C-alpha cells in the first residue's frame, strides 16, 4: 500500500504563514489547545535613524503617518564600543536590571523584542508595565521590535529545544539580523557612517557561548555595566537573585520549607483544605501575622518565621490550618524586629539559623502565655503558609542599618552585604549587596526585593536610588509619597494640553447664545457663598438658601462643574483616574487635576462667574424635603468664608443682610438634619485628627498643631454635603441600576467588637450594643466617664477601628440592601461634592448629567466609560486604594511634622538648657506584656511605651535614650491580660511604691519629646513618650 503526503514546499506563501501553538487551562478546568496563526511580514522597520532601507517600507497608519524612528543615528559609545552601540537585552537581563534600564545615566538606544516583552509579562507584571512606560517615553529611545512577525527574525522552535533556548536564539537572531541589516543599509546609503555595534545583554552563560559561535556580541549585564562610567553605582542596581545563586552553587542549608506545587495548591483550594488570602503583618509584632480568608469569620493567625515561610506583608498566600494543639492566642507582646535581631550579620549565611535564639525565646514566652491563660484566652486557630499565589512586592523606602556595615564601611569600593531597614515595620530587613555602603549610610534610599530563597533568612534585594539625606524635608516627603504609592510627578504635557487654551483668562461666556450656556440655568442672581477651611484654594462647594412665597425655603448646593473641563477618556481624565484623589500633606498638596483647573477655573471663587452643578431642594420650615432638582448652572459666589468667619457673621446680631440671613437659615436646617440623622442611627465617630496650620512665624512650631475644632458652621456645610450626596445617589441609582457609582460602608461583623466590648465591661462596666448602628450610637453616647471627658472620644476612636472602611462600588456589584452606609445610617450614599479632589465625584457628575438628560455644550454629551460595569469596577478598585493611601499619607505626614516640630522645640530648649520634652496627658489604648500604647490627644499621635520608658517613682525622667535602654534589662513586669493591667517595677524591688501600675483607658501623665531613633525608624524621629505617673 502506498501512501503519499501532499507536498507543501511548492507553495510560495508557505514560509510566510506559521503558527504558534500552546495549551490553555481555563479557570473552569477546561484544557484547550490554542493555535494562533502568524503571518510573517517584511515591512517591520528596524527603526534606526541610520537605516536608509526601512523608511521606504515602514507601514503607515490610516492618516499616512509613519511612526517616527526611535533609535539614534549617533548612539552613545563606550570604551568597548567606540562606534556606538544598540542594546538587545534578554528577559533575564530585564528581570535583574530593570532599574538600570530606567536609569537616566546610561542604557539608551535599546531594542526590546516582542519575545522578551511577552516573556517578561508572564514573569512579572509590574516589571512589564515599567518596561512599557519606558518604551513610551521618547528620551530613553527604547524601541519595541516585533521580531516574531518579521520574516527574517522569526524563529521556529526546533525539536527538543526548550522554550528558553528558543527565545535566547530569537534574541541572537535579531542581533545578527540588525548587524547585517545596518551594514547593508550603510553600504547602500554610500555614506561612510560607522555602523553601531549590536550588543546582546544576557545573563545566561550558555547563550553567551552560543553567541560567540554565531559571531554575535553578547555580554552579561554586570560585564556590560562594568564598562560604563559610574559603574559602581550602577552595579548595585543589578538584581540580586540569579547572580547570587550562581556563585553560591548548590544551596547549603535550607531554612524554609518548600512551597507546594501549583496543582497541589489548586486542588487544596478547591477542596477547601487550603485557604487563600492576603498576608497581613501585625504592626506591633513582626512575628505575628493574620490572613483573612473567606471561609472563616475571623482572620487566621500565623506565628513565627517558620510558619510565615518567606511571606511578606501584602503577598497573596495560600495557608493551611495547623492542628488544634498548635493553636495560640494572639501575642500580648510588642516585638520589634530590630530589637530582636540587632546583631545579625548580613554576610554570614551558613551559621545563621532561620529562627535565631532570641526569636525562639520570644516565641516560647508567647506560647507559655497562650497556654497559661487558657481559662479566658481561647487559643485561636493558627495556620502556616504553604504556597504563594502572588508576591505583593514593591519598592520600599528604607535606610541602611548602620550596625550591619562592616567596620571598614567607609573605606574602599569593596562590595559588601548590608541590611536595609524598610520604613514599613511590617517588612523584614532586606539584604543588599552594595559597593557604596559608606555613601548610603544616613541616606533615605529606595530598594526593591528580588527574591527570597529557601536558604536565606532574609529576602535579598537591590538598591534603586537615594532620595537624599535622612530627615531632610525633601527626602522624607518623597519617601512618604513613594511609600504610599502617590503619583507625584508633574503632569505630562499631554495632560496640560487638555486644559482650556485661554488659561487663567477663561471666563463664562457673556452671551447666553453661546454653546456653553446650553442646558445651563442662570443662577447668578442667587446669594451664594462658600464656607471652607481657612486658606482653601480649591473651593468645591457653595451654598444658598432663600425663602419662597409659599412659606417654604429653597436650599441649593452648588458644586464645581469639573466634568465640563475634564472630558471622558482624554489624557487628563486618564491621569486623574489613576491619581484618584488629591493628597494633602502638611506642607504640600499633590493635586489630582492640574493647578489651573483645581484652584482657578473650577474653583467656585467669590465674585466671579463659574460653571456649577447645582442640587436645589424645596424644604418646609421644618426641613422636610418637598422636592429636589438637579441642574447645570452658572453661579456667582458672593463671598468665600472660612468656618470661623462664617460663624462670627452668623453670631453677630448686627449683621442683617440677606446673605447672613440665608446662612442662618442654612444653619437652622442643618441642625434639624443633623438631629434627624442621629435619630436614624448615624454614628458620631472620632478619629485622632489634628490640624496643622503652618505659619511662617518663627514662634513655637508646636502651636501650629491644633486639634480640629468643630464649629457649628463645619457641620452646616457637612450636613448639606451629606444631603446632596444622598439625593444624588438615589437619582443616579434610579437611572443606572447597574452602573451607578456609589459608596457603601458595610455593617461590621459583631465579632470585630468582641475585644472592645470585653475591655469596656471589665474596666468600666459599660455595655456596648453593636446590634445596629443606632444601638451602637446610643451605647457610645452612654460611655461617659465624668472624671475623664476624653474617655468618650477614646472609646469612639477604638470603636472606629473595629469597623470596616467605606468603599466605592458599582451598583451592580452588590444587592440593594448591601448599599447601606453604616456610619451615616443612610440606605444609599455616594460622593458628589468634591470633584476637584476626588475622581469618584467626577464620575458621579457625569452620571448625574446623563441622568438628567444634560446634553453638553455640543448637544451630544459623551458619557462613555460610565456605562460599562467592568471598567467602572476597575476604577472603583483603584480609587478605593488611592483613597486609603491618601489618608495614610496625610496621617504619616502629620506624624512626621509633629516629630519635626518637637525636634525643633527640643533643639531650641537644648540651646537654653536641657531638653525636657513637653508634659501632656495621654490615654492608655492597649496594654501589652512589655509595654503599653498611649494616645496623646494634643498631638493626635499614639506611641508605644516600652519598659524603659516608664519613669518609676524616685528616678528622674531625663535619661538619654541609650541610658534608658539599659534600664529595660533591670525591669520586670506583671501583666494581667484579663484585667488589662501592667505593673512595671525594678527587678528585686517588688515594693509597692517602687513600681508603676497602668491599666487600660487610664489617663496618664506623659512626657513627649522627639528622639533620634536608630535602626528602622531612623530619621523619622520617634516620638518618645515617657510615662511619668
Amino acid at each position: 500500500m502506498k501512501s503519499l503526503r501532499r507536498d507543501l514546499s511548492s507553495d510560495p506563501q508557505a514560509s510566510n504563514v506559521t503558527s504558534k501553538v500552546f495549551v490553555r487551562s481555563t479557570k473552569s478546568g477546561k484544557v484547550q489547545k490554542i493555535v494562533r496563526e502568524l503571518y510573517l511580514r517584511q515591512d517591520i522597520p528596524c527603526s534606526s535613524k541610520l537605516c536608509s532601507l526601512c523608511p521606504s517600507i515602514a507601514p503607515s497608519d490610516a492618516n499616512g503617518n509613519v511612526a517616527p524612528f526611535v533609535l539614534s543615528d549617533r548612539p552613545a559609545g563606550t570604551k568597548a564600543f567606540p562606534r556606538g552601540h544598540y542594546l538587545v537585552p534578554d528577559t533575564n537581563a530585564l528581570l535583574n536590571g530593570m532599574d538600570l534600564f530606567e536609569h537616566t545615566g546610561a542604557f539608551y538606544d535599546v531594542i526590546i523584542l516582542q519575545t522578551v516583552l511577552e516573556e517578561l509579562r508572564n514573569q512579572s507584571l509590574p516589571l512589564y508595565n515599567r518596561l512599557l512606560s519606558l518604551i513610551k517615553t521618547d528620551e530613553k529611545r527604547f524601541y519595541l521590535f516585533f521580531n516574531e512577525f518579521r520574516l527574517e527574525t522569526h524563529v521556529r522552535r526546533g525539536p527538543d529545544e526548550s522554550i528558553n533556548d528558543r527565545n535566547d536564539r530569537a534574541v541572537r537572531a535579531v542581533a545578527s539580523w540588525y548587524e547585517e541589516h545596518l551594514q547593508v543599509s550603510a553600504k547602500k546609503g554610500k555614506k561612510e557612517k560607522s555602523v553601531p555595534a549590536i550588543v546582546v545583554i544576557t545573563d545566561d552563560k550558555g547563550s553567551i557561548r552560543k553567541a560567540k559561535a554565531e559571531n554575535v556580541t553578547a555580554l552579561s549585564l554586570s560585564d556590560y555595566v562594568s564598562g560604563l562610567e559610574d559603574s559602581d553605582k550602577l552595579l548595585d542596581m543589578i538584581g540580586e537573585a540569579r547572580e547570587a545563586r550562581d556563585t553560591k552553587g548548590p544551596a547549603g542549608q535550607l531554612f524554609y520549607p518548600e512551597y507546594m506545587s501549583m496543582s497541589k495548591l489548586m486542588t487544596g483550594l478547591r477542596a477547601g483544605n487550603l485557604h487563600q488570602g492576603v498576608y497581613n503583618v501585625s504592626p506591633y509584632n513582626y512575628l505575628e501575622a493574620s490572613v483573612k480568608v473567606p471561609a472563616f469569620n475571623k482572620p487566621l493567625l500565623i506565628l513565627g518565621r517558620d510558619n510565615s515561610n518567606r511571606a511578606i506583608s501584602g503577598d497573596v498566600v495560600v495557608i493551611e490550618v495547623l492542628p488544634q494543639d498548635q493553636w495560640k492566642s494572639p501575642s500580648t507582646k510588642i516585638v520589634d524586629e530590630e530589637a530582636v535581631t540587632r546583631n545579625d550579620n548580613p554576610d554570614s549565611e551558613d551559621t545563621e539559623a532561620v529562627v535565631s535564639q532570641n526569636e525562639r525565646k520570644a516565641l516560647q514566652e508567647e506560647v507559655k502565655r497562650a497556654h497559661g491563660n487558657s481559662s479566658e484566652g481561647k487559643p485561636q486557630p493558627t495556620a502556616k503558609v504553604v504556597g504563594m499565589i502572588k508576591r505583593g512586592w514593591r519598592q520600599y523606602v528604607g535606610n541602611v542599618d548602620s550596625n550591619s556595615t562592616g567596620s571598614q564601611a567607609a573605606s574602599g569600593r569593596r562590595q559588601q552585604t548590608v541590611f536595609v531597614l524598610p520604613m514599613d515595620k511590617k517588612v523584614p530587613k532586606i539584604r543588599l549587596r552594595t559597593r557604596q555602603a559608606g555613601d548610603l549610610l544616613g541616606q533615605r534610599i529606595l530598594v526593591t526585593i528580588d527574591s527570597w530563597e529557601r536558604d536565606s533568612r532574609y529576602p535579598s534585594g537591590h538598591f534603586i536610588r537615594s532620595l537624599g539625606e535622612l530627615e531632610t524635608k525633601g527626602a522624607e516627603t518623597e519617601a512618604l509619597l513613594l511609600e504610599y504609592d502617590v503619583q507625584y510627578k508633574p503632569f505630562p504635557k499631554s495632560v496640560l494640553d487638555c486644559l482650556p487654551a485661554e488659561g487663567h483668562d477663561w471666563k463664562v461666556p457673556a452671551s447666553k447664545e453661546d454653546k456653553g450656556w446650553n442646558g445651563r440655568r442662570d443662577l447668578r442672581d442667587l446669594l451664594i457663598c462658600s464656607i471652607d477651611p481657612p486658606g482653601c484654594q480649591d473651593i468645591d462647594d457653595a451654598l444658598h438658601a432663600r425663602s419662597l412665597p409659599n412659606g417654604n425655603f429653597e436650599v441649593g448646593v452648588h458644586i464645581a462643574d469639573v466634568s465640563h473641563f475634564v472630558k471622558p477618556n482624554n489624557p487628563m481624565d486618564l491621569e486623574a483616574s489613576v491619581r484618584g484623589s488629591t493628597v494633602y500633606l502638611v506642607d504640600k498638596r499633590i493635586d489630582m487635576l492640574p493647578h489651573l483647573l483645581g484652584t482657578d477655573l473650577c474653583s467656585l471663587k467669590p465674585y466671579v462667574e463659574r460653571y456649577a452643578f447645582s442640587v436645589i431642594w424645596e424644604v418646609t420650615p421644618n426641613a422636610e424635603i418637598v422636592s429636589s432638582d438637579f441642574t447645570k448652572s452658572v453661579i456667582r459666589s458672593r463671598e468665600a468664608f472660612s468656618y470661623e468667619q462664617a460663624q462670627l457673621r452668623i453670631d453677630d446680631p448686627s449683621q442683617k443682610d440677606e446673605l447672613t440671613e440665608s446662612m442662618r437659615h442654612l444653619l437652622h436646617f442643618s441642625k434639624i438634619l443633623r438631629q434627624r440623622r442621629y435619630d436614624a442611627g448615624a454614628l458620631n465617630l472620632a478619629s485622632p485628627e489634628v490640624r496643622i496650620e503652618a505659619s511662617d512665624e518663627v514662634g513655637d512650631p508646636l502651636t501650629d498643631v491644633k486639634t480640629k475644632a468643630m464649629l457649628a458652621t463645619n457641620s452646616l456645610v457637612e450636613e448639606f454635603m451629606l444631603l446632596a450626596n444622598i439625593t444624588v445617589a438615589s437619582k443616579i441609582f434610579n437611572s443606572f441600576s447597574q452602573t451607578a457609582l456609589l459608596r457603601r460602608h458595610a455593617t461590621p461583623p459583631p465579632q470585630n467588637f468582641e475585644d472592645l466590648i470585653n475591655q469596656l465591661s471589665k474596666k468600666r462596666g459599660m455595655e456596648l450594643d453593636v446590634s445596629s448602628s443606632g444601638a451602637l450610637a446610643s451605647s457610645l453616647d452612654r460611655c461617659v466617664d465624668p472624671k475623664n471627658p476624653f474617655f468618650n472620644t477614646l472609646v469612639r476612636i477604638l470603636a472606629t477601628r473595629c469597623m470596616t472602611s467605606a468603599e466605592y462600588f458599582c451598583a451592580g456589584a452588590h444587592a440593594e440592601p448591601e448599599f447601606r452606609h453604616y456610619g451615616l445610617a443612610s440606605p444609599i450614599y455616594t460622593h458628589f461634592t468634591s470633584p476637584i479632589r476626588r475622581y469618584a465625584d467626577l464620575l458621579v457628575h457625569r452620571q448625574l448629567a446623563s441622568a438628567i438628560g444634560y446634553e453638553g455644550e455640543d448637544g451630544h454629551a459623551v458619557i462613555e466609560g460610565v456605562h460599562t460595569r467592568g471598567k467602572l469596577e476597575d476604577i472603583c478598585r483603584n480609587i478605593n486604594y488611592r483613597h486609603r493611601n491618601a489618608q495614610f499619607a496625610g496621617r504619616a505626614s502629620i506624624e512626621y511634622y509633629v516629630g519635626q516640630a518637637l525636634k525643633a522645640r527640643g533643639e531650641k530648649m537644648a540651646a537654653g538648657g536641657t531638653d525636657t520634652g513637653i508634659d501632656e496627658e495621654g490615654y492608655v489604648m492597649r496594654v501589652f506584656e512589655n509595654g503599653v500604647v498611649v494616645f496623646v490627644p494634643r498631638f493626635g499621635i499614639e506611641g508605644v511605651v516600652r519598659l524603659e520608658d516608664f519613669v518609676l517613682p524616685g528616678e528622674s525622667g531625663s535619661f538619654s535614650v541609650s541610658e534608658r535602654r539599659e534600664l529595660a534589662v533591670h525591669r520586670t513586669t506583671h501583666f494581667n491580660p484579663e484585667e488589662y493591667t501592667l505593673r512595671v517595677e525594678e527587678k528585686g524591688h517588688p515594693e509597692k511604691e517602687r513600681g508603676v501600675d497602668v491599666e487600660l483607658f487610664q489617663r496618664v501623665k506623659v512626657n513627649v519629646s522627639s528622639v533620634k531613633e536608630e535602626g528602622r525608624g531612623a530619621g523619622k524621629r520617634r516620638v518618645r513618650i515617657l510615662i511619668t505617673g
Partner: protein
Amino acid sequence: MSNQRQASSASQTPHLSPAELSYLYTSLSLPKSPIRPDGRSPTQFRPLSAETNILPGTNGSARIGFADGTQAIVGVKAEVEKTILSTDTLASGIEDQVGGEGGEGEGLSAAATGHGSWVQMSIEIPGFRDDDALPVFLSEMMRESLVGSVADGEGSGVGEMVGGLKGRLVINKRWHWRLYIDVLLLSQPLSYPLPLLSLTTHLALLSTKLPKLKSQGEEDPFFDDDWAVAEYLYPRTSTPKTGTTSHVRPPVTLLVVSVGENVIFDPTREEIAVADAVLAISVTRDTEAGNLKLLSIRTIDPPSRLTTPAVPNSENVNMLGATASTEDIAVLNPATGEEEVPGVWRPRRGGIKRSVIAYMIKTVLKKGGVGEEVLEGLEGVEVE
C-alpha cells in the same frame, strides 16, 4: 430514496445489468486466480494519499483520499472531565471485584480502567442525517473496536499502553479525558466507506497528542502549557534508525469480500456488488511484540442480495426454442451450494464457508500479511 438507503447498508449498488454482474462474478470467482476489473491481485490495495495534522486546532487529525475519489477527514479533540463515581459503587467495593465489568459495579472500576463512553464518535456522511442507520452503525462499529481493544499482556515495557485506549484516558481517580472523534466523509459514499473512515481515524488517533500532565497523583489535573511537550495518545518509542514508532496501534477495520472461493481485499464498488459475503475485519496491535490481534469480524449485508436476477434462456418466453437446452443445465456452485445456470446472474443469498473465513483471517493476521502491510503503509505517513 430513504428506504433504499436504509436497506442498502453497503451503499448504493452500481447500475449493472444482470449480464455484467454475472460476468464480473465469474471472473472474480475463477479458482485461485481471480481477475479483478482493475487488474489488481486479490490482496493488493489501491494507492491512497494521506496526511496528518491537517487541522491545527485539534489534538490530532488526518485526511485520506482513496483512488476512487472518496476522501475523509478525521479530527480528534480531547477534553478533561470529572469522573463521576456513583454512590452505590463507592459504598460497595466488593461488588466490583465480583461483578467485574458492566452493570452497576462499573463506576469504580471505570475510575481505574476507563470507560467506553469516554470515547465519542460522530460520523458525517453527505446526504445522510446523523441519525440515519448508516452513520450510526458505522460509528458504533468503529468505536466498539477502539474501546474494546485492551492489552491482555501485563506489558511493562516502554511504549506499552496498559488498559488500552480506555486506560490511557484515565488521568487519576477523579479525572479523565473524553475523546471526541469527528469523522467527516468529504465525498459521496461511492463505495462502502468503512475502510476509508477506519484508516483515517487510525491515522488521526496516531497523531493525537494530549497535553503533558504536570500534577501528580490525585491532585486536580494541571497541564504543561507548552504544546511541544504534549504526549502522544498512543505512546511511541524512539529508535535510532527510524525515529519514533508506535508499536501499539489503534485498530484498523478492513473490508474483505468473498467471491466464490476467493477472498478479495480493498474491493471496489462493483466488486462488492457481486460479492457472496462482505466482512469487516478489525485488527490491532496492542503489544510491543508486534503480533496482530483480531478484534472483531462483522458481516455486512451484501448488496448483491438486492440485485435483480437474470432469467435463464430456458425460462425466457422470448427465447423459447432458440437455444439448445444443454446450455442451461444448472450446475452446483461450490461456494454457495446452490444450483446455478452459468452466465445467468442470480442474487447472492449470503452465507460463507468456514474455510473461506479462516483463509481470510490468516491472510490478514499472518506475519507479512495484509494487516501488517496496511499498518506499515500508514506508518509511512509522516506523523509530525
